[in-house]
C-alpha cells in the first residue's frame, strides 16, 4: 500500500516529517494533585497524579526514595468497536511498566523518601502512538502536581514505510507492519530515557528514524513548555499578583 504518495503527502495529508496536531490542557481532574489531558491528533489521553503521599502498603516503603506507581488503561470506548478489556492484560501491564520506568528516571525520588506517587493514565481515544501521548500527559500532570523533576520527559514515535522515515504514526500507519520506534528524551539534558522498537530496521536507517523521533520529542517539549508557561500565567492572574 502507498503510505506516502509521490507528491510527498501521507494518507492524512501530512508530510513525512510532520506531527499531528497537539493539544493539551492542565488541571482537568480537580480532585487529583496534578492532572492533564494530551491530544496527538485523534489520540486523546488523560493523566492524573496523586502524591507524594503516605505509602499505602508499608512493606513497599523505601527509606531513601519515593515509590512511583503507574497504571495505564484504555477506556472501553477508546477504539471504535466497544470491547470489554480485562484490567491488567499483558499489553497494559507492559505499557504501565514502560511509563513508570520513564517517569522514575526524571522524578527526583530521593527528595521524597518514604512516600508514594501514583500516576494514572487512561486512553480516551486511540489512534496510534498511545504510549507517547501517555508519557507526555504524565509529564504535564507531574509538573502540575509540582513534583520535583530533573527535566520534562517528552516522547514521540517514528516509523519507516515506503522507504521513508515518518514522524508520529497514526493507527493506520502503525498497523502497516513497518518498524515503529518510540523514543522518550530529557530534552534539556539531551538524554534518552526510553527507546522501543518493534520489527527490524537496518542500522543506518534506524539511526535516521530515531533522529527523526528525537526531533519530534523536542517539538513536543517546546509545546509542553508553552502550555506550562501559559498555565503559570493564568495561575498568577488568579492569585492576583
Amino acid at each position, binding site marked *: 500500500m502507498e503510505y506516502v504518495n509521490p507528491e510527498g503527502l501521507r494518507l492524512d*495529508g501530512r508530510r513525512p516529517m510532520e506531527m499531528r496536531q497537539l493539544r493539551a490542557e492542565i488541571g482537568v481532574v480537580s480532585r487529583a494533585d496534578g492532572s492533564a489531558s494530551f491530544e496527538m491528533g485523534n489520540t486523546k489521553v488523560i493523566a492524573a497524579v496523586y502524591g507524594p503521599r503516605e505509602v499505602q502498603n508499608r512493606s513497599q516503603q523505601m527509606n531513601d526514595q519515593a515509590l512511583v506507581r503507574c497504571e495505564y488503561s484504555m477506556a472501553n470506548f477508546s477504539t471504535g468497536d466497544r470491547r470489554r478489556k480485562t484490567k491488567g492484560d499483558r499489553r497494559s501491564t507492559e505499557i504501565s511498566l514502560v511509563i513508570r520506568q520513564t517517569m522514575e528516571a526524571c522524578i527526583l525520588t530521593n527528595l521524597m523518601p518514604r512516600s508514594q506517587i501514583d500516576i494514572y493514565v487512561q486512553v480516551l481515544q486511540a489512534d496510534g502512538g498511545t504510549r507517547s501521548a501517555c508519557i507526555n500527559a504524565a509529564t504535564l500532570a507531574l509538573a502540575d502536581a509540582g513534583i520535583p523533576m530533573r527535566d520534562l520527559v517528552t516522547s514521540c514515535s517514528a516509523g519507516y514505510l515506503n522507504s521513508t522515515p515518518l514522524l508520529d504514526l*497514526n493507527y493506520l500507519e502503525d498497523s502497516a507492519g513497518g518498524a515503529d520506534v518510540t523514543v522518550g528524551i530529557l530534552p534539556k539534558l539531551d538524554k534518552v530515557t526510553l527507546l522501543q522498537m518493534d520489527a527490524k530496521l537496518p542500522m543506518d536507517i534506524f539511526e535516521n528514524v530515531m533522529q527523526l523521533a528525537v526531533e519530534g520529542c523536542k517539538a513536543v517539549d517546546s509545546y509542553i513548555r508553552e502550555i506550562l508557561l501559559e498555565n503559570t500565567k493564568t495561575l498568577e492572574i488568579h492569585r492576583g499578583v
Partner: protein
Amino acid sequence: MLKSKAFSRQTRQGKVVKEVREHYLRDDIYCGVPYCYNKKTEDNDKGCDISSARLSDSPSTTILVLDTNVVLNQIDLLENPAMDNVVVLSVVLSEVKNKNIAVYNRLRALCSNSLRKFYVFSNEHHKDTYVTAMAGESPNDRNDRAIRKAAKWYQDHLGDAASVLLITNDRENKKKAIEEGISAETIECYVKSLGQPELLDLIVQPPSEDVIMDDVEDLRPSKRKVIYNEHKPMSEITSGLLRGLLHQGKLRVNRFNPFEAYVGSESIGDEIIIYGRANINRAFDGDIVAVELLPQEQWHEEKSLALADEEDEEEDVHLAPNSADDAPRVMNQGQTAPEETKPSRPTGRVVGIIKRNWHSYCGSLEPMPMPAGDGGRAHALFVSKDRRFPKIRIQTRQLGNLLDKRIIVAVDSWDRLSRFPTGHYVRTIGEIGDRDTETEVVLIENDIDARPFSAQVLACLPPLPWSVSSQDLTNPIRQDLRHLRVCSVDPPGCKDIDDALHCMPLPNGNFEVGVHIADVTNFVHPGTPLDDEASQRGTSVYLVERRIDMLPKPLTEDICSLRSDVERLAFSVIWEMTPDAEIISTRYTKSVIKSCAALSYVEAQARMDDSRLVDPITSDLRNLNKLAKIMRQRRIDRGALTLASAEVKFQIDTETHDPLDIGMYQIREANQMIEEFMLAANVAVAEQILKHFPLCALLRRHPSPTKEMLEPLLRTAEAVGLSLDVTSSKALADSLDRAKGDDPYFNKLIRILATRCMTQAVYFCSGDLSPPEYLHYGLASLLYTHFTSPIRRYADVIVHRLLAASLGIYKLPGVFQDRPKLTSISDNLNYRHRNAQMASRASVELHTLIFFRKRPTDTEARIVKIRSNGFIVFVPKYGIEGPVYLTPKGDKGGEWTVDEKQQKIRKLDGSVSYGVLGTVRIHMEVVEPQPNRPKLQLTLV
C-alpha cells in the same frame, strides 16, 4: 487546518464499524504553473513555490483539468504526446485507483515522466479546494463537485493569464461547470479542436453513441440478434460461488484453438473445459471468470462440435514445439471409442466475468476494400497476431494508412449483441512483414522490455575500464586462483561468458575439477535500481539477430564475462574427483581467476580429436571429457532422459541481417561435456543452499508427466508397433533407447515427440512445496537449481546470494525472509523465462519465413499427426512443423478416410495411404494469399 473524515466501513467479518480519520488541509500545495503571478518571492512567502512546477511555461497553452471518466476511458489518448499540460487532481487519482489499477499505474507513469507535462494537484488536501460531502450527496457527486471546485480554483488563481479547460464526458458535470463559470468541453470536441485527425482514432467511443455501428449491423438482419448469454450480476455470482454452484478461476484459451478454453478451478481441483464461442461467452484469456458446469451428459457432444469448429480455422506452419506447453493441446480422440464413454474432464460455460484482463493487442486489420467516402469514419476488423484473442472491431479515419500496418488496439467493451468486441486504435508499429516491425511485435507480444537501461540503473555500474583491484585480491573471502589453468568453452561468437572450467591432476591420482562462474553478485547488490531492473527482466532474451540483455552491456560483455587472458572475479565450485568421477569432496569459494583460453565448441572438439596435440589445455580437456562421459553414463543409468529438440541455427548476413542459411544445431561431445559439469555444479549448489536454507532456497523442478500428457506419444508409438514403458523416467529412458527403427532418424523423431509431451521445468521456493515434489524428472535428480549463468538469468543471481550467505560471506538479504515476495519473484522468473523462449521461437519462425521467401525448396518431411483432411508434417532439416492438406480447403474429405487406430489416412480406392512417422517429400514455398500477409505453405510433391 484540521478536518476529520468519518465514514463507515465493513470489516472482513462483516461487521460495520465507523472509522474516523484525520484529514489535514494545507496551504503549501502549489499550482505547478511556472508563470504563476502569485509566486513565492522574498517578500511574498505565502505564494506558490514554482521550483517543482511541471506545467508548460507558455501561458498560451491551455491547462487541462480531467474528469475521472475521461482518464478511465481515454488513457490511450492521454499517453499520446499531443495531450499535454494536464492537471491531474488527487481526487481523480484515487477514484481511478479504486476502479482500475492498471489505468492508475499508467497515469502515474505519465505523471512521473519528465518529458510529459502532467502535474498532480493534491486538491483533497488544499485548504481552498477541499469540499465536504453535503447531506444526501453521493460520493460520485461530491467528487464531481471537487473537480469543478479545483478547476474553478485554477481559473481564479491564474486569472486572465491562462485558459483552464475542464474536460469531462459527463453531461451533467459539464452543464454544472458551465453554470459555475468554468469552461468545460468534452474530449471529442477538444481533440477535434486540435486539428489532428489521427488522434480521433484514439478516442474510445462511449457505448451510447454507437448508433452508426447499429446501422451497419442492420444490413445483416440475421446477425442482429442476441449472440451471447447475459452475464450474471455480481451478487448472484458471489452467492453461486458460496453455494458451490459456480466455480471461479482464471480462463486460459488454447493457444492453438481459440474456441477451446480451460478454467483451473480450485473448488473442483481440476480444469474445467469450455468449448465454443457461445460458452466462452465474451471472456478473454486471463480473465477471472465464474463458470457453471454443464450436465454430465453434455460433456461429450460439445467435444465433437468443437472439433468441427476447429476445422474451420486454418493452421499455420510454425516451429516444432519443444515441450507440452508449446504444443497444441490434444484432445483425447481415443475416447470416442464406445468402451470409453465415461468422460474424464468436466465441461462448463462462463456465466460471469469477475475481473477483466483486457489490455492492448498487437496485430493487423483484416483486409477489406476501401469504403467509398475516404477520410470519413470507417469500421474495420482487427485480427490479433495471437490467435487466443478474438477479432476486435474498431473505428478509424485513416483506414488506407493502417491496412498494411501492424497496429496496437485496445479493447473497450463487448455487448451481447455483437459477435466481436469493440476497441480503438492505439498506435502503429510499422509495415507488415518488415523485419524490424515483426521483431517489435514479437517483443510486445511476449511482454519483453527492450528499452535501453535507465540512467539510475547505469549509475550502479562500476567505473570503466574496470580491473581486479588489490582489494579484491587481499579480501579474505576471495581465493586467488589465478595460477590455475582455466578455460572456457562456449558457442562461437559468445560474448557473455559466464562459465569456465579447470581440471588438474593431483599427486594421488585424483583430479581437482573446478567450475568457475562469473561473480555477478559482486556488482549487482540487492535493492539497487540495477537489481530491481534485472529482477524485472528476469532473463536475457536471445533473438535470431539480436540479444536483449538482462544486465547492461558493460557488465554482460566485459566486467563479468570470463574472457581469456584477463583477471576476473568468479564464484567457484571445486571438487576432488577420482578417475572414476566419484566426488570425494566439494568446496565453494569466491575467487579470482585468469582464463587462459576462450574456446568455441568446435575448437574444443577439434583439439580433443586431434591426437597430435599434447599441450596442457588439450590434455585438460581430454581429462574433463573422460570424467564427463562417466558422469553422463551414471546419470543416464539413474534414469535421466536424453531428450531431443529440433533447434535450428541461422547464418545471418552481417549487413542486411537477412538469413543466409539455416540448419540443425549440431551437438558435439564438447557441448555435452560442458553441460555435464554445469549440471553437476547446479546440483551441488542446490544441495548446499537447501541444507542451509530449507525454507527459502530457490530451486528448479520438473514435474513428472501425467499419463494423459504422454497419451499422444503412446498412441503414435502403438501405431508404428512400438511399445513404450512410461511407468518411470528410467523405464521411459530405456524404452526410448530400445526404439530403433530401420532408418537412423527414427529414434531421434520418437525422442522429439517424447520431449513434446513433457511440461517445462519451473523455478519454485523450497518452502512452498514438500521435498518429494522437488524432483527434476528429466535429469532424474532429486534437487536442481540454476547457478551457472548469472549474467543472463536472474534466478542464478538469487542462487549466488543464497550460496554466499550459506558460506557466511554475506548476510542474507531481507527478501528471503518474505515468503510471499519470494514466491512472486519465482513466478515472475517462470513467466519471463517462458516469454523469452516464446520470443526466441517467434523470432526463428519469422526468419524462417524471410529465408524461404526467396527460396522455394523441396525437402523431406516426417508425418507426425494425422488429420481428417491431411496431416501435420515435421521438417527435420529446418525444425518446422505445418499442415499438408490432401483435400482443398472447405471440401470435407470424401476421398480420404482416417484410420484412428493405426493413425493412417487412406484414399478410398486404396491406392495411396500415409501413416504416422512416414516419410514424404514436400515442397515449401512462401505464398501471399492476401496482399502483405505472406505465409509458408507446404504441399506434397
